[in-house]
């Protein structure tokens, strides 16, 4: 089912006037379904379209009520199911039993807003620190984050290793295999993993809450700090939501420049991961080669945006910096140089025997599981799910630029890495096309500082997968609510599933194939 009208008709015929459907708001439509109907609506949608999944769950403070918005993606159109619960008794039925991918999203809403999902209750904290007091929910409007009294660190449970041959290995928060702090308690029976328990939130910075007390202009820079590696896409996702409310006429040249910035970013991010995977499987030479060849790409990012990492190129109404025509030959020559090296790298990733031994049939995620868990990006495309947001819901200038959607069907680590390998080449093509077909004209329009009341969502394809932003404005120059759902947050559940039953030695290679970014996950 790829048509929004079909889905709306189906829901109207099934639920009649028990639900309200507002067509056209929040992409395809907002479905208001209270009193537990959200569960039935979602079930009906999943039955009608196998690609239905939950992109994110936004919790909102609506005064005396709490809003729980289920952002649902289908094969093409994008819906939002809105449910509300009273603040005094914030209980709502969980949807984990019909869509397991909602697990992390529900736990996060519980931790940050205190909504209790009946059937999926949270023990302790999920993203907040252990020192955070119980019953204080930071995203509620009445909580002043500066006045929260932290509690002493609770007594640590003694390490219970027992139970026969089972040994608990703690991976993280500090571990050579993880470049960022996050904890995974892996229980192993001999060398076989039997259980994985994650604990995220070690670098939670409260960016969603911080964004509510800053102007839109400052927020653009703030959301870039969610992730160092993929920062332009965060800026773009935020800016595009704001632009959906403001509706400025963004010049076409700006859109092309945005695409160039985003694809350069994807290029360097993919090269980073392809090299890092080598490090995880003990292939240091691979790592050194990829990172050597990534450097010229970083130079291009510096050339086009002014900085190697944080270019802050994208802003509301356009981009901050035009492309100097004198730099175009340099961009092209660097990309051409890299294209010449591609056959070597591709052959290496496709055929090198020890690499295949370590990556083939490791961490296999079937297509059904990928759909059920709502995984995104290269992880989904490695499992045969053709969901590249650049194709399904084209944004910016992607609808004018020809490129291939890369899909592998094996579903293992090898497939996920090769999706990235092939996307590197597509990114080079896109940048070259965009540079060749750059429209002339201005690169930025003036926009008002205050944003009228409204709400918008934006789904974009970050290097690690679908990145989702929800922004609600209240007529001032500061947003009412900013919800960020990062790709790694959606992909971690797949790791919890695929790691079980495999060797502990496969954990790093399996995990790195998700291209995990914990800084994103924790926000």
């Amino acid at each position: 089912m790829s048509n929004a009208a079909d889905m709306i008709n189906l829901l109207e015929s099934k639920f009649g006037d028990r639900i309200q459907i507002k067509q056209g708001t929040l992409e395809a439509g907002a479905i208001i379904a209270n009193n537990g109907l959200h569960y039935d609506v979602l079930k009906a949608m999943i039955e009608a379209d196998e690609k239905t999944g939950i992109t994110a769950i936004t919790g909102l403070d609506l005064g005396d009520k709490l809003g729980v918005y289920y952002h649902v993606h289908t094969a093409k159109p994008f819906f939002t199911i809105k449910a509300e619960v009273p603040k005094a008794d914030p209980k709502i039925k969980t949807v984990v039993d019909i869509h397991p991918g909602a697990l992390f999203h529900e736990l996060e809403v519980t931790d940050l807003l205190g909504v209790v999902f009946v059937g999926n209750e949270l023990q302790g904290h999920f993203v907040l620190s252990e020192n955070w007091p119980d019953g204080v929910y930071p995203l509620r409007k009445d909580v002043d984050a500066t006045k929260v009294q932290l509690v002493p660190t609770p007594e640590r449970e003694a390490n219970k290793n027992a139970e026969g041959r089972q040994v608990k290995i703690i991976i993280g928060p500090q571990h050579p295999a993880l470049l960022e702090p996050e904890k995974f308690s892996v229980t192993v029976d001999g060398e076989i993993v039997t259980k994985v328990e994650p604990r995220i939130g070690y670098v939670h910075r409260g960016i969603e809450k911080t964004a509510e007390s800053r102007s839109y202009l400052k927020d653009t820079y703030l959301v870039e700090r969610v992730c160092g590696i993929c920062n332009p896409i965060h800026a773009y996702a935020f800016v595009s939501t704001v632009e959906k409310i403001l509706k400025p006429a963004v010049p076409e040249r700006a859109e092309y420049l945005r695409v160039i910035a985003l694809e350069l970013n994807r290029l360097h991010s993919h090269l980073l991961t392809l090299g890092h995977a080598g490090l995880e499987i003990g292939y240091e030479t691979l790592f050194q080669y990829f990172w050597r060849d990534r450097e010229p790409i970083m130079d291009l990012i510096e050339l086009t945006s002014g900085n190697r990492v944080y270019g802050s190129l994208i802003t509301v109404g356009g981009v901050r910096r035009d492309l100097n025509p004198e730099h175009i030959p340099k961009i092209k020559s660097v990309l051409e140089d890299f294209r010449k090296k591609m056959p070597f790298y591709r052959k290496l990733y496709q055929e090198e025997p020890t690499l295949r031994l370590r990556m083939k049939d490791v961490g296999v995620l079937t297509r059904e599981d990928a759909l059920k868990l709502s995984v995104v990006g290269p992880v989904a495309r490695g499992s045969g799910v053709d969901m590249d947001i650049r194709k399904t819901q084209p944004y910016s200038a992607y609808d004018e630029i020809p490129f291939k959607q890369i899909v592998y069907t094996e579903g293992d680590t090898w497939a996920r890495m090769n999706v990235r390998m092939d996307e590197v080449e597509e990114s080079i093509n896109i940048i070259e096309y965009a540079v060749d077909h750059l429209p002339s004209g201005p690169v930025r329009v003036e926009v008002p500082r205050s944003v009228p009341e409204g709400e918008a969502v934006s789904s974009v394809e970050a290097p690690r997968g679908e990145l989702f932003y929800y922004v609600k404005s209240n007529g001032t120059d500061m947003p009412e609510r900013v919800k960020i759902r990062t790709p790694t947050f959606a992909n971690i559940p797949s790791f919890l599933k695929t790691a079980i039953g495999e060797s502990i030695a496969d954990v790093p290679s399996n995990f790195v194939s998700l291209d995990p970014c914990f800084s994103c996950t924790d926000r």
Partner: protein
Amino acid sequence: MIDLWLIFRILVFPGFTFILFLTLFCDWVERKLEARIQNRVGPMVAGPGGILQPLADFIKLLTKEDIEPRDTKKLVFRYAPLAAFSIMMFAMCFLPIDGASVISTGGFSGDLIIILAFATIANFLLFMAGWASANPYGTIGSARVLTQFLGYDIPLYLLALTPAFIAGSIQIATIASSFPYILLAPWAFILFIITMQAELEKDPFDVPHSESEVVGGLETEYTGAKLAFLHLTRDVQVVFGSALVVELFLGGPNGPVFFGLDWLFYTLWFVLKLLIVVVISEYITTVVARLRIDQVLTGNWKILLPAALLSLIAAVALATWVYHPFGIGMAVGV
């Protein structure tokens, strides 16, 4: 009477000091080679081309604070690294370096078996070191050491017997001086190098040191001087393994001698041949990924062990019906 000459041979040349510096030199060669293959510069500050870097690292570790976790088995934790190092050094003393072994009269019929046994004991001591460190990573790392060397010792012994059988002797000096057996049994040379990679825990067999899985492996809890000796033991093992290849397959220290300086040229040939083996071994390490422990074991029992047996059978057959009747490869006096 104190034999001053013997003491000099044991302590200085070609004994302890020489082997120690040879080890550090080989370490530098490995690091530099790996760096160049990976487009890096490698060590370059200490000494010309960074040649003193391994020594500097060793001395630096000696000066670091020595921490002993509370739950360790103190005796084993403290002395296993030192004992492993001593045994490896002792095993080195049986190898002919400047024409004769360190203790000139120390070689005896069957010393090939005893140095292989020493290598096994040293590995076992390393396992004990990790096991005593009361750390899950150390425990898993050392369990992997044990699994790996127990498996790979069998093909290693069988392959070491291949040249021994053609030579008709199990005395290293005799095997080394009779013929470069790489010419008579090239297949065994290739298999021996691969098995040696596994014995020395180098890529693609370095699962006990896989930092992304088991952090530091058996070294996780070690600091300071003990860690320095663990590292040194590994480096001596690498030299020992390469030296064994030289002695068994490349004719040991034998080569043309000029000006009557036989000890100098023997040492030179030995070091040159050793470097060739070190370079081959390091090259393999650099261009492959690390295997998984189950793949390592499958490779051992399903591929290397049958191959080693076939190699031995082939050597026996060739020696009996081809080489010996024509007087090729037979050690003198057999």
